[in-house]
């Protein structure tokens, strides 16, 4: 543990509203200085968990420790966390400077020191010289930065962020993702970040906690979660994927009677779903060893700039499933693209073939 951050230890946190569990026995460890993202669809409980950390929601039971200190019974103003809200929650009756200086004033920091720390925080978020502006004179991106400066000015050891980029347009959002990550690396405070945007989570996090229906579904580094999803919910939620039903018997998997070779997951028998990531599937001219092949008819071909998305309906006895294939935009492949209505063969390397339940 270093001096600028604290680890967070969450144990059995449970919150029930009538018959509905907002959080169900959630336990997880967040390392000191880590950028942890709580990822889940809306209503999954991720924001509730963040509010429990901040102290705005009391769970029915459970423990939250910052470092070695139990904080669950402490009111929010004694927890010493920095927090950035979804709609920024800036004080509209104060200037930028007054907003950022607010936590310092509460802490009885001297005027000179407050001025210095406010300037430092504003320069950290690249808002130098805007201190005298009113909040209503700022753009959305600038407000976002003020909210961030206000949350870091007193150098909290833990920073909580509740979907802070959701109100920004796509381009600014993507810029801010990189910037927030760099800021975290500079300040090194433990950061808990809530989002429903899986791409944002993959871009920014050291580790991701996927939450659904109040339960922790998977915890891991971004590439672990993407490459080895625990179940079909995560396979579907993180990244794009086509899920094809396969049956595994005696270590052999089959899709509509045709054998599929799996890299992993053939140990157990039963019904599973084969995860086909569009960027891992490819158009095949000829079948070579080391890949699985599926035959189907191209039913849609969509130009998306950096790639062409092909929707292929698999030929099979029952109603064919659809598989999406992403072909990178290179001049050679663009020329060779099949036409809608043509029959195509899709390949998927054995190494990329795995099933989830």
């Amino acid at each position, binding site marked *: 543990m270093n001096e600028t951050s604290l680890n967070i230890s969450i144990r059995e946190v449970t919150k029930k509203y009538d018959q509905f569990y907002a959080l169900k026995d959630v336990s997880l460890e967040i390392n000191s200085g880590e950028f942890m993202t709580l990822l889940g669809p809306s209503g999954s409980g991720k924001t509730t968990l963040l509010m429990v950390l901040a102290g705005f929601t009391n769970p029915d039971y459970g423990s939250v420790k910052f470092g070695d200190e139990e904080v669950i019974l402490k009111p929010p*103003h004694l*927890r010493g966390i920095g927090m950035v809200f979804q709609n920024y929650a800036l004080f509209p009756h104060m200037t930028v400077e007054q907003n950022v200086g607010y936590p310092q004033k509460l802490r009885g920091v001297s005027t000179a020191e407050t001025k210095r720390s406010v300037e430092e925080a504003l320069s950290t978020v690249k808002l130098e010289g805007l201190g005298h502006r009113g909040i209503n004179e700022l753009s959305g991106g600038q407000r976002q930065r003020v909210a961030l400066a206000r949350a870091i000015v007193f150098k909290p050891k833990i920073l909580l962020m509740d979907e802070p980029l959701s109100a920004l347009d796509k381009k600014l959002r993507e810029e801010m993702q990189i910037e927030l990550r760099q800021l975290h690396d500079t300040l090194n405070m433990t950061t808990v970040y809530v989002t429903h945007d899986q791409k944002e989570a993959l871009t920014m996090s050291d580790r991701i906690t996927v939450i659904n229906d109040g339960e922790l579904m998977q915890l891991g580094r971004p590439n672990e979660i993407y490459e080895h999803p625990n179940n079909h919910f995560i396979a579907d939620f993180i990244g794009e994927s086509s899920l094809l039903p396969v049956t595994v018997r005696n270590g052999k998997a089959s899709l509509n009677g045709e054998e599929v070779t799996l890299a992993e997951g053939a140990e157990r028998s039963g019904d599973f779903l084969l995860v086909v990531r569009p960027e891992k599937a490819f158009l095949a001219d000829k079948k070579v060893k080391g890949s699985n092949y599926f035959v189907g008819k191209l039913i849609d071909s969509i130009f998306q700039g950096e790639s062409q998305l092909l929707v292929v309906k698999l030929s099979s006895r029952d109603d064919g499933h659809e598989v999406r294939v992403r072909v990178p935009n290179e001049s050679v492949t663009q020329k060779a693209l099949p036409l809608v209505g043509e029959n195509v063969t899709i390949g998927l390397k054995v190494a990329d073939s795995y099933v989830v339940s």
Partner: protein
Amino acid sequence: MTIAEMEKPNERGLQKVAANERLTFFGLTLPYLLMVTALIVIPVGWLFYLSFIGRDGSLSFENYERMMKSKAYIRIFLTTFKISILTTIICAAIGYPLAYFMSQLSRKWANICMIGVLIPFWTSLLVRTYAWLVLLQKKGLLNNMAIEMGLISEPIKIVHNTTGTLIGMVHIMLPFLILPLYANMRAIDKDTLKAASSLGATPTRAFWTVFFPLSLPGLLAGLLIVFVLCLGFYVTPAILGGGRVIMAAMKISSNIELYFSWGAASALGVVLLVVTGIILFIASKLVSMDQLGNR
């Protein structure tokens, strides 16, 4: 014909559409403009003119001079301001906590509370004023109860004086303070209070540094409405004051009904109008209309 002289596609048609729209908007405001002219501009102008007409029918300042010199008039103005200021302050003291409480409730419960605020508001002013008379009089409900409970031995005088007038006026004015204040408080982003608290503010500190300043536009709007309405209030002080509390509006009425002195009544009205105007002007400097609207 050059390109510049050629007509752009549909240029004239679209200009006609725009002109029709302007005409429609003017047509919609016309009834109101006519009403304001007939019922406000002309009568007020007429009063203004009357206030400069002396007893002999010539142009003079005598109505105003008499007002400045007469102690009775000065006392009436002092009473008017005293009652108005006290009513406004008491309304704020009662109304602010109530509006705050309501703003923290869920919409459903807040609406139920709001009905409680509005039912008296919808009841006739005269009915409510007489109801207070019944409650407060010497052998009224309040005195009887207090005597039976042994709190007092003699009935106390709480009507036909300033106290009675204040009780009645506060009751009638309270909704006017609560309505704008509550609307303002509702619009305050609750996350700003959470933010203050996450940044280290105790609930009390968060209230005074964030909530209260953000509720000021609503509070000032409410105070202003109440104060201005009090200045011209007639029925309640007339009934509950029992002739001992004489406010400007009552003097205007008696000038006309008893003395047929339209000039004196008009002069009083003009002074009241000017004072109200000055107060509104100062208030608008304190809270820009902008701020009131920017929620």
